């Protein structure tokens, strides 16, 4: 079969979309649902830029075929915070000027959120491991680590 009905939940909202077999989760999110926040950096799963949370786990959406996301709960950057009400992680990234070109930031924020949900008091080493699959070329990662530490602190209190 080359077309399938994909039923899944994205950022809390249920969707039913007709997808082709070869479409990736990344394509469905960006092109069908118009959620452009998830980016494509390499198409081969080597940069982590396309990271989204699927049933609470960080995954590379360029390596997941859309139909494999059936019945799953997907969380993308669009589901995190808003301009009026930034998530503490987003606020920390802004305050630390941790976003430079911004391309890796959605994935970094999702990875950080995933980390802090499981480990509210991470060491710098934990933060490095949690973000180790996402490449950043602009920041040297340092301010990203600081932002996550600050966010962790705020979220604990």
């Amino acid at each position, binding site marked *: 079969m080359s077309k399938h009905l994909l039923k899944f939940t994205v950022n809390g909202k249920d969707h039913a979309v007709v997808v082709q077999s*070869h479409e990736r989760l990344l394509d469905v999110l*960006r092109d069908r649902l*118009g959620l*452009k*926040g*998830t*980016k*494509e*950096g*390499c*198409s*081969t799963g*080597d*940069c982590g*830029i396309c990271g989204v949370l699927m049933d609470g786990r960080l995954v590379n959406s360029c390596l997941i075929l859309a139909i494999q996301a059936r019945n799953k709960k997907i969380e*993308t*950057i*669009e589901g*995190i*915070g*808003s*301009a009026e009400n*930034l998530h503490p992680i*987003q606020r920390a*990234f*802004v*305050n*630390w*000027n*941790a*976003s*430079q*070109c*911004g*391309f*890796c*930031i*959605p994935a970094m*924020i999702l990875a950080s959120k995933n980390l802090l949900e499981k480990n509210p008091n991470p060491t710098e080493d934990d*933060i*490095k*491991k949690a*973000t*180790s*699959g*996402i*490449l*950043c*070329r*602009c*920041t*040297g*990662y*340092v*301010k*990203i*680590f600081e932002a996550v530490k600050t966010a962790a602190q705020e979220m604990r209190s």
Partner: protein
Amino acid sequence: MVEDQATLKKLINGNQFLLVGKSIQRVDSIDKVLGKPIYTMDIVPENALYLKVVRSRLAHAFLKHVDLSEARKYPGVAAVITANDIPGINESTALLPDKPLLASGRVRFAGEPIAAIASYDPSIAEEAVDLVRIEYEALPAVFSPVDALKSSAPSIHQNGNIAKHMKLRKGDVEEGFKQADLIVEETYKSQFQEPIPLEPEAGFVVPEPDGSVTCVGSIQSPFHVQTGIAKILSLRPEQVRVIQAVTGGAFGPKSDEIPVDVLGMAAVVAVKTRKPAALAYTREESMVGHTKRHPFVTTLKAGVKKDGKFTAWQATLLADTGAYASLGPLVVIRACFHATGPYVIPNVRTDAYCVYTNNTMAGSFRGFGGPQAHFAAESHVEEIAKKLDMDPIEFRLLNILRPGTLMATSQVVDEACGLEECVNRAVKESDWYGKREQFRKMSGPKRRGLGIAIMYHGNSLGPEGSDYAAVHMQIDKDGIISFRTGLTEYGTGAPSGLLQIAAETMHLPISYFKLEPPDTDFCSETGPTVASRTITIGGRATQMVAGKLHQRLRETAAELLDCNADEIESTDAMYYQRSKPGRRASFREVIEYADKHGTELKEAGTFTAPKCEYNPETSQGTTYLQYTYGAVTAEVEVDTETGHTQVLRMVTAYDVGKTINPLSLEGQIEGGTAQGLGYALMEELKHKDGIVLNPNLADYYIPTSMDIPEIKTIIVEYPGHLGPYGAKAIGEPPIVLPAPAIVNAIDNALGVRLHEIPTTPDRVLIACKRARKDQRPK
């Protein structure tokens, strides 16, 4: 609120700077942390055609026959373009007119674009690419500058294989070598480094009803693109509107040919079909198609007296610029000027060559010749110190540039030279003597070392071109101050810094300002966003225009308050009559007054840096208007059994003139340091017979979060004469020193020097084996 003069005076003088020097939030962060659709491929129009590119499989060949008939017929294909479809000139270049947009008759590198196929469905375009049949007649090819310079080498371009030969002649090197007590000669090699902006190149073109086109893309230099597209389409520049979409990293290539390649191909399709056309490169296309750092082979010969003072320095630098020169000639010019490192040397002879080969193109990439020159020079300095049995710090301090001394270009170092302070503070912070003593006594398979490297970096374009920037500012009736410039943001944070400077100049909160996307319809020609010149040249333009606009506001306030303009003081969005501070008007009141009376609050201007005068045959004269200086140490641990090098800690000390935004400054330093670390340890784009072997992120390694050492940044400020508040360029310098510092640290750890980067584990292991052999008792 202020009621009396004394309080007003205190308020104004209290903070020397309101905003400059403060870590203000960047203005582009909110959209980015929310994941807003702001990058090029997020905003492609609904009905756009998508292009896929047909590329050469051979590195050097005549195109005997290009058969597109099957592709044209393939269902769903909307257009197929070749060089014959270009309405104007088939050219997409950065400097020399040596490169076509689409190859016609001949290809010079593997991956060169030959044709493009467009369809509403990118998969269809991609399938049609497979149907293109090309018959090549292979030509002899060369893949290294050494081979390209032989008399038997094939000519890649009409005028031979040397795109540029830059010379520096100071004093008399032969005489200098005669005076030397010790002469040290060595050759150093560095590799193709791939910029890897995380967003690959992308762009789309919309044909407008009036025959003009609108181009949107991931670019650094909108005006360069405008000129290029106009030539390709045979339009006037005013008929080509170029808008920079938010750009996910650039580092150099997005200011060279590539955006013109991408938008040029899209534009030809758009104009032919009268439909919007988009082209997004895959990561592999990006890595093969765009410009990267020139590999250099550098031979250095230095003469010193036994007290350690330099007498002579001779350098030959060979740069592999690939099939097309791009900005290679300018890269070797900068490398030529900096080939000695930041030292006082009375006799210097440098020859830098930009050489064509049939590899992929090399061009602009952060550092622009500086990293290559310093890797060689700072490695060589260590060799010399070792042979003299002198402490490397002492040797450097004996010879470094200080105010009043002469550079290799005979330019006099002015008082804005913080090099010595950078060196001393880096030495102290890294615990240089303590650690090196400790490391000497180490045994076991893991060895530690501490190395240093120092630099200077001529700011802005210098001799590379006319250095100017334009800024437009306008206040609308709601009080929003729109700020427009052709200088682009692609991660540096520099345009946010310009807003900080504007806000500082006008004594207004930064929230009043709005940074508009660079758009050739709304700004004047501003030159490229390169050479770390946004804060320096853009900053001066900003000060100038903001100053004029501020004056307008003061004049309007004076009218409102019925006094003279020169009696107006302002602070924190409030305008006071100096002699009677009780008389005041808020920014809002001034705006409303201006609106009511039809006063336009808008100013524009261009700042042009003074021209640099120097002799192009000898490189003697003023090559740059100011210099950034730096010293970096690297502490490494080498696993002598696997060759793996772990960088534990780096101290990065820079003389930045004046810090505009500390957090953004540190971000640039940390990011550049990480790229420099990659350059030193793991990044290498490999070619074999012109074909890139690792054009992907699985086999081309850039540092991950797990590879980053502790980075301690030291900022030193010796204000220069060029930038606003004395600010110096800091975008590029941080990438220059990690490589020599790390190579020197490895030498300290193993007692063996590597002359080639990257110092990948296999190369280090060979060096370890050599060290073990040297240390075995005879």
